[in-house]
């Protein structure tokens, strides 16, 4: 069946027809032979009974007048029938009266007559038939017939059937080879058309219809399908063109908007820079004149006046710091990054060297458990990141032994490493995790934890983002804070730490 399945349809049809025809012929032949066998047996029994009747009729006188010689002669006449291998006659009392055996044959001839009837025994058919004269049984005929003739006739019949079978098979082969085209031709034509359509992508092709049967309906359905596909193809093409057109339009719009945005961003940075730069000068004047006033008119000012002037000077200094931060921040947007391969161990070492004095004063310890990797980044600005985070870790820390740890985790499947700066400081409540990155946003009173402008984390975030990186925070209030950041695109890391607020520790 598996072999048949993969045959070409035209061969398949011929094979199926041949199997059907052949099977029918074989069955019919077997049936005929079986029928013949039983018919021949029954015919043979009938023939033998007739023969026994004739022998009996010819033996009536011999039996009546006890003439064994004559009886033997009668039996001998059976030599003319080649099937008969032996015969015998029994008298009215059933005793053997005369017997005859074909020369060379050794038939089993019973000594006494048996019950009337034929029986097949081995290769022989035997028959007891009464001899009747005037309605009176005067003896019995016994005949032994060889079954050779049956087998001979069956063989002849089988040969005839085989010959007919062969002729019928040849005729069936010729017919089916011719007729299979009725089914296979439309199917093959359909298959060719389908292949042509798929190879050339030409949906305007159509299959020709040859008949009004199921195959014809199949062809119709196929053509109908092609029409629909063609129609949809056309619609799809126009929709695609339309879509491309719209995408191009949108891209154009976006490019314009982007350019405008960049322009306004730059203008904003310029404005902030110029504004803060220009603001510094009058501020410097205010400060200087306040100082002149305090020095030159010290004798004319009372304590209250002096105190107010000192406050004025403190405020101007503070404003200067704020403006410096703003300048630094706006400068970040204005200058280009200098990307190079940087050994971060060196960067961190330089930062720590600069901070050495203040770290010692705060009695803070900074550890790097394992060497940091080399990455592609802007050396100076990356140093700025570490500087700000270390300073934060030490500044917002009320522990006796302040500790800051710097390390990294390898990125998964090609993603860039994620660096971290961990402290054992006061921590940041979850609700403030976004606010800490806003410029000039301070969580604490101005004079607590050493003051500061509140621009440090904003600057760090801006540097990280200019490196196409991400920064996020994990913290447990009272125990410490960990800042994580990447330098470069790291989707998998970002996804891994997408909701840092939920992760424990």
């Amino acid at each position, binding site marked *: 069946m598996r072999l048949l399945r993969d045959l070409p349809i035209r061969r398949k049809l011929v094979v199926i027809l041949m199997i059907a025809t052949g099977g029918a012929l074989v069955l019919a032949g077997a049936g005929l032979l079986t029928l013949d066998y039983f018919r021949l047996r029954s015919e043979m029994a009938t023939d033998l009974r007739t023969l026994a009747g004739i022998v009996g009729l*010819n033996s009536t*006188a011999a039996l009546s*007048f*006890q*003439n064994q010689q004559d009886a033997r002669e009668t039996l001998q006449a059976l030599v003319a029938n080649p099937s008969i291998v032996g015969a015998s006659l029994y008298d009215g009392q059933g005793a053997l009266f005369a017997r005859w055996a074909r020369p060379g044959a050794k038939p089993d001839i019973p000594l006494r007559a048996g019950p009337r009837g034929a029986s097949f025994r081995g290769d022989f058919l035997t028959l007891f038939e009464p001899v009747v004269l005037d309605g009176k049984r005067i003896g019995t005929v016994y005949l032994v017939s060889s079954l050779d003739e049956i087998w001979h006739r069956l063989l002849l019949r089988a040969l005839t059937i085989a010959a007919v079978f062969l002729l019928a098979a040849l005729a069936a082969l010729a017919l089916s080879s011719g007729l299979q085209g009725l089914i296979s031709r439309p199917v093959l034509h359909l298959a060719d058309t389908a292949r042509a359509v798929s190879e050339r992508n030409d949906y305007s092709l159509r299959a020709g219809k040859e008949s009004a049967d199921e195959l014809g309906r199949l062809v119709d359905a196929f053509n109908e399908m092609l029409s629909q596909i063609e129609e949809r193809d056309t619609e799809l093409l126009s929709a695609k063109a339309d879509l491309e057109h719209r995408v191009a339009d949108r891209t154009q719009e976006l490019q314009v908007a982007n350019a405008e945005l960049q322009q306004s961003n730059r203008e904003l940075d310029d404005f902030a820079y110029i504004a803060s730069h220009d603001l510094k000068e009058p501020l410097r004047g205010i400060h200087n004149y306040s100082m002149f006033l305090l020095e030159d008119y010290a004798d004319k000012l009372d304590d209250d006046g002096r105190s107010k002037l000192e406050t004025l000077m403190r405020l101007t200094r503070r404003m200067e710091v704020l403006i410096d931060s703003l300048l630094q921040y706006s400068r970040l947007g204005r200058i280009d990054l200098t990307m190079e391969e940087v050994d971060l161990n060196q960067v961190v070492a330089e930062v720590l060297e600069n901070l050495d004095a203040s770290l010692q004063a705060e009695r803070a310890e900074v550890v790097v458990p394992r060497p940091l990797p080399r990455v592609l980044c802007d050396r100076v600005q990356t140093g700025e990141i570490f500087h700000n985070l270390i300073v934060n870790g030490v500044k917002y820390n009320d522990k006796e032994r302040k500790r800051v740890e710097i390390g990294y985790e390898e990125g998964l499947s090609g993603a860039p490493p994620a660096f971290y700066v961990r402290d054992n400081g006061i921590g940041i409540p979850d609700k403030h995790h976004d606010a800490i990155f806003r410029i000039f946003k301070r969580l604490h009173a101005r004079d607590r934890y050493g003051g500061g402008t509140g621009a440090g984390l904003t600057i760090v975030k801006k540097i990280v983002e200019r490196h196409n990186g991400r920064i996020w925070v994990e913290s447990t209030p009272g125990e410490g804070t960990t800042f994580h950041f990447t330098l470069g695109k790291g989707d998998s890391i970002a996804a891994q730490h997408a909701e840092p607020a939920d992760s424990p520790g």
Partner: protein
Amino acid sequence: MAVLRRGLLLLLLLACPVAPLGAQAPEYDVKAAFLFNFVKFVEWPADAFAAERAPLAICVYGSDPFGRSLETVIQGERVGERGLIVERPDRLDDLEACHVLFVSGSEKDRLAAVLARVKDAPVLTVGDTEGFLRAGGIINFILEGSKVRFLINQEAAERSGLRISSKLMRLAVSPGGR
């Protein structure tokens, strides 16, 4: 010994009644059976019988050698529709009423006269005397060894209007051989 003797006796007793009509049977028992069997192989003209179902008469003329064996043979037998009777006529005039006439050996010297009497009548004449056929008889018993055989004079049979079956003719010993 006693058992053996009794067994032997029993065997003899059994053997006698069932013994086939063969060589061992007394000669006239065989001949009686043959007389009856001839009837089945011979055809009489229709006018040989007084009526359609009239019995067929087997007659014995002269001193009877059969005893009761003829009666035993025909006991309960029929030939076609007809029954059988055995007659022992004394007078020559009665012989024409017979269908089968056995002429006893006692009539050896009067054969010609007896046979002449039924010469043209449909009577199957049977005898066992020498020269029976020559005298015009139809069937003559002879002995071949211990076996009973017979000769047939077909001319005489035809003259009497009797038809003798070819099967019977085949069994007859050819007259030339005697």
